[in-house]
Structures are given as structure tokens and as C-alpha cells.
């Protein structure tokens, strides 16, 4: 198990390095440079700025210096557009995205999984048909439609809820709902599929022949296997949820991390861009690993450590 985790973490390091390389050169390939503005700045000032951020060095030197600085100094460079260390920017905005993402995931699991289980139990009934139609709509309707609809029809009418803003805990509800509904829809469909697959297995018939009542049939015999597809999906999508969504953050004015993905590109702020991209990559690697470990716990046939036995 330990060996498996170490192996996967080393692989993850390789993935992150590849991600860094691609992001680095794509950022360099962007037209213009961080100090291109509408204002007329003298060449001397620009040269001074470049030297300050180390952007006057050769491409190869820059490419090597960034990861070396991360390892030796723990420094993720300084954002050229904000003039603050990238680490501080992430440290400040990530907690907001984390809270929002966790709430969204909570909503997604609480809605999606039961809906999927019920649909599978009542296959081809109106319950199944209805919830799967809603799930399909949930997948198809984008956040920039759901968000404003919630603002207009719910926030505007319920006292206590604000149309936008990020201050009191109650402000989490609407953005989390917007963010979570799509994931809930995917989860519902995956759970239904997984449960149907399991419910058609021979061992379910064995359990029924033992006289297991139908509620225990679901909870004890079917759920473990039926949730596996959903768990494989939750891993990476959890990383996406907690690293912030530009659209949801913009609609509800949440000071999260998602805005930086877009704003860094607009500002040609390559250090901020590298920082958030690598952080997102790191989350994906960790969450995928967590999903695999969870799968190994749920399904005893999956042996994580191939060397064992």
C-alpha cells in the first residue's frame, strides 16, 4: 500500500513536470509580454521590470529556474500583474474555493447518489424516467444559465439570501448549488448505471434467495460495487470543484481561485498562470490517487500493490 502510494506520487511528479513544461511554453507563446499596456511606458522602465522578474534571462534559464526556486526556496515567483507572491494569492483565494467546492460536492453527492440508486431500483418507472430527464437537463444547462436563474427566482425572493457576495456563511448556498448541480447530474447517471450493473449480477440473486429484504439488498450487497463508477468520477471532479470556477465566481462575486485562471491569461501574467495551473494539476493527482485508494478499499479484488503476493 505504502509502496503503491509512493509509486503513484512519483508518477504524479512526472505528470506535474510535463504540465509545467507545456504551460510554460504555451505562456511564452502568448503574444505580447506582461508589461505590454496601453500606457506608453519607456523601454528603460520595461527593461527594469523584466530584470526585476528575471524575464530578461534566456528561455532555457527561465525554464529551469522556476522549478529550482520552488524546490530550494519554496517560492512560486511573484505575480507580474498583482505584484504579490503567487503563493500568497493562492493561499488567500483557495480557502474560499475549497469551502465552495466542498459544499458543492456535498450537494452533488446528497442529490446525485440517492437519485441514481432510486432510479436503478425503479428502473423504467416514471421515477427513473423523471429523474434521469432532470439529470440530463442538469448536464446540458450551463452554470451561466443556472446561476442567474437562481439569482432571479430564489435570491431575489428569499430574505437572507443575497444575489451576490461573499461574507456570511449563507452566501455559500447559491453558488454551491450552481456549481454542484451539474456534478449531481453526472453522479446520478453514473450511480444508476453502476447500480443497474450490480443488481443484474448473480450474487444479488443469491442474496435474495437467502431472504435478504430489499433495503438491505441495496445497502449491504449492491451499494459497494454500484458506487465504484461514481467514485472514479468524484476524484478528478472534486479537484475541479475546489480549484474554483471562473463562471460561478464571477456570477456570485466569490473571491475564489477560479478567476485567476482567466485573469492571468488576460494579463499575460505567466507566473500566476503557472502557479494556479500547477496547483490544479497537483489537486488532480492527489484526488485521483485518493479515488484509487478508495476503490481498492471498496473492491477487495483490486490489488493496489502489484508486487504483493
Amino acid at each position, binding site marked *: 500500500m505504502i509502496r503503491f502510494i509512493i509509486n503513484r506520487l512519483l508518477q504524479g511528479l512526472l505528470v506535474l513536470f510535463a504540465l509545467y513544461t507545456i504551460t510554460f511554453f504555451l505562456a511564452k507563446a502568448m503574444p505580447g509580454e506582461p508589461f505590454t499596456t496601453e500606457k506608453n511606458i519607456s523601454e528603460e522602465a520595461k527593461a527594469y521590470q523584466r530584470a526585476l522578474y528575471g524575464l530578461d534571462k534566456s528561455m532555457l534559464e527561465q525554464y529551469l529556474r522556476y522549478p529550482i526556486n520552488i524546490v530550494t526556496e519554496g517560492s512560486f515567483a511573484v505575480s507580474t500583474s498583482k505584484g504579490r507572491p503567487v503563493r500568497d494569492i493562492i493561499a488567500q483565494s483557495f480557502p474560499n474555493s475549497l469551502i465552495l467546492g466542498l459544499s458543492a460536492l456535498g450537494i452533488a453527492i446528497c442529490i446525485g447518489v440517492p437519485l441514481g440508486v432510486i432510479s436503478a431500483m425503479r428502473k423504467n418507472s416514471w421515477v427513473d424516467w423523471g429523474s434521469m430527464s432532470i439529470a440530463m437537463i442538469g448536464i446540458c444547462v450551463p452554470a451561466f444559465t443556472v446561476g442567474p436563474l437562481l439569482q432571479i427566482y430564489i435570491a431575489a425572493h428569499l430574505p437572507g439570501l443575497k444575489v451576490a457576495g461573499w461574507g456570511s456563511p449563507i452566501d455559500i448556498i447559491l453558488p454551491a448549488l450552481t456549481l454542484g448541480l451539474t456534478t449531481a447530474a453526472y453522479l446520478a447517471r453514473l450511480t444508476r448505471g453502476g447500480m443497474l450493473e450490480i443488481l443484474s449480477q448473480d*450474487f444479488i440473486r443469491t442474496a435474495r434467495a437467502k431472504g435478504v429484504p430489499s433495503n438491505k439488498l441495496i445497502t449491504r450487497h449492491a451499494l459497494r460495487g454500484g458506487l465504484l463508477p461514481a467514485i472514479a468520477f468524484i476524484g478528478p471532479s472534486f479537484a475541479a470543484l475546489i480549484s474554483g470556477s471562473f463562471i460561478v465566481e464571477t456570477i456570485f462575486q466569490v473571491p475564489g481561485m477560479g478567476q485567476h485562471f482567466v485573469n492571468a491569461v488576460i494579463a499575460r501574467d505567466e507566473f500566476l498562470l503557472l502557479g494556479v495551473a500547477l496547483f490544479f494539476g497537483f489537486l488532480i493527482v492527489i484526488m485521483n490517487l485518493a479515488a484509487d485508494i478508495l476503490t481498492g478499499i471498496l473492491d477487495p479484488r483490486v490489488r493496489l500493490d502489484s508486487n504483493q503476493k
Partner: protein
Amino acid sequence: MPLLEVNNLRTYFHTRNGIVRAVDGVSFSVEKGKTIGIVGESGSGKSVSCYSLLGLLPMPPGRIESGEAIFDRNTDLLSCGEKVLRTVRGKRIGMIFQDPMTSLNPYMRIADQIIEPLRLHMGMDKGSALKKAIHALDEVGIPEPDNRITMYPHEFSGGMRQRVMIAMALITNPEILIADEPTTALDVTIQKQILDLIKKRQKELGTAVIFITHDLAVISEICEDVNIMYAGRIIERASATELFANPRHAYTRSLLKSIPANQTKGEKLYTIPGLPPDTSQIIPGCAFRERNQIGDQSKCLTDSRPEFKEIEPNHWAQDCPGCLS
């Protein structure tokens, strides 16, 4: 009064391509402690008959159209409802299945699966249920049962899993054990062990067994009474000794003739030509007519289904002149 008496059971599947008459008027009875066999080709309705009894069929598309199955004088398994049926399933009637590789839950430890009937039906606490389960595994010949009980099914071989299934089905001392082709998925040496085990446990517990198979050798080994099924009906019934010595129906004779061991070496093996009839079509006459080579095909009934009659004392068969000649 027999322990279980099935009368005129009809189970139909209502599918998009019409009504499949999988079981079409089957009657049989099981005496206490005795073994009856149900033999037939794939699709002849033998498994569906038994699944119908325990309410294990997916409904829809399955539907029990008629019949009764009187268990222990007063319970009609077909009409008693799910709640009563659940107190019978796994407690008074146990069941083992064809494929031991897929019939055990791969996500649960053997221990949790095997104590489930005890916990559900006997209200035993976990500790004493586990003790009994370990004992049960020991009785079906699993070495180091207290160690192996904590393992998962994938850590067992096919034969071992079938032993676990048998231990699990018999752990509540059921009055009837339904064995649905329990040896089909196993190789021959293991088959013999499993058959011997079923016989041994049956003797010790006094359980009646309904043994479903398509293997006549297995039937001759284990059963007292044999029912031959074809196209959803029983076409011949007799004691095992009588049936093998004096088969009457052309289908039974064809089955016996197609056993490889009964044929001359070097000659082409005999097989029954054609396929079993499509039970989604109404068969007006004798269902075996088109494949009948041994009897007299021209004399087979074409306008009415042959009646199931006692043609000799304790020897029943479908009364079709073509098939009996």
C-alpha cells in the same frame, strides 16, 4: 402429504417479441428427505420453475400465470406474498446456483455472507453466528475454516466457493435445498466431490433436494425420482432406476442415446437434431414431433397437446403415440 406440492405452474415472460411460455403447466412434488431431479436442455424451463417458487424471477417481464406450490401443507409459495416468502427463502428452502464464481458477493467477506441467513432468520448475535459459520465451513470440508472465513470470494477456487455456497444454503437447516446445476461450472473431479458433499449433508440433515441439471450421469448418481422437462412441460417422470432401465418417451430415449459413453467407439456421436421449439409460438401438437427420430414421427399428435398420464404404475409420460412408439 408431500413437503412441497407444485400444481400446474405456469410462468410466462411478456417480452417485446411476444409471450414466452417458459413454464407451461408443471406439476411435481417433493417428499421429506427425498431427492428429485429435473432434467432438460437449456431453455426447457427447469430453472425458471424453481425460481418461480421462491419469487426470484425478475417481474416484469416474468409473470406467474397460474398454479400453486403448497409448502408444508399450508403455505402457497406462489400467492403468499413477498413478506411471507422472505421467511421461507434462505430459512426453510435454501438454494445453490450454477456458477459459484459469480454467485458470491465479491465485495463482502465470506464471513459476512455466510452469517447473513443466521442473523436474518434466527436473530443470532454476530459472535455465535460466526461460530456456527466456521463450524458449517468445516462440515463442507474447507480447511482452516476460522482463518478462511475472513477472506473474500476471489481468494477461493471454484470448488471451494461452491462448498461455501452449500454451507451457506444449509446453515439454517432448511427442509428443502434447491440445487440449480451446482456442478455444471466445475470440472469433473470437483463435480464428484460436490455431489458427494450434497449427498452427505442431505443424509445428515434430512433435507429434501430438488436437483436441476442437464447431466444425466449426475441425475443417476443422486436422484430418487426424475422429471424430464421439454419446452416448459414435464414429459416423463419415473424413479431413477426405472427411467434409466425403461425410458418410454422418445425425448428421454434420445437423451440417453446421446450420452457419449453409451455409443460405439469410432462412430459419429448421436445428437438430437434441431433445436428446442420456440416457446413464444403456440405449439398445437406434440412439441417434440419435429426432432423425433427414435419414435414414429408420423404418429405424433399435431392437433392437440399430449396428456401427461400414468402409462405404467409410477411411470408417467406425455401420451403421444408417436413419441411412445
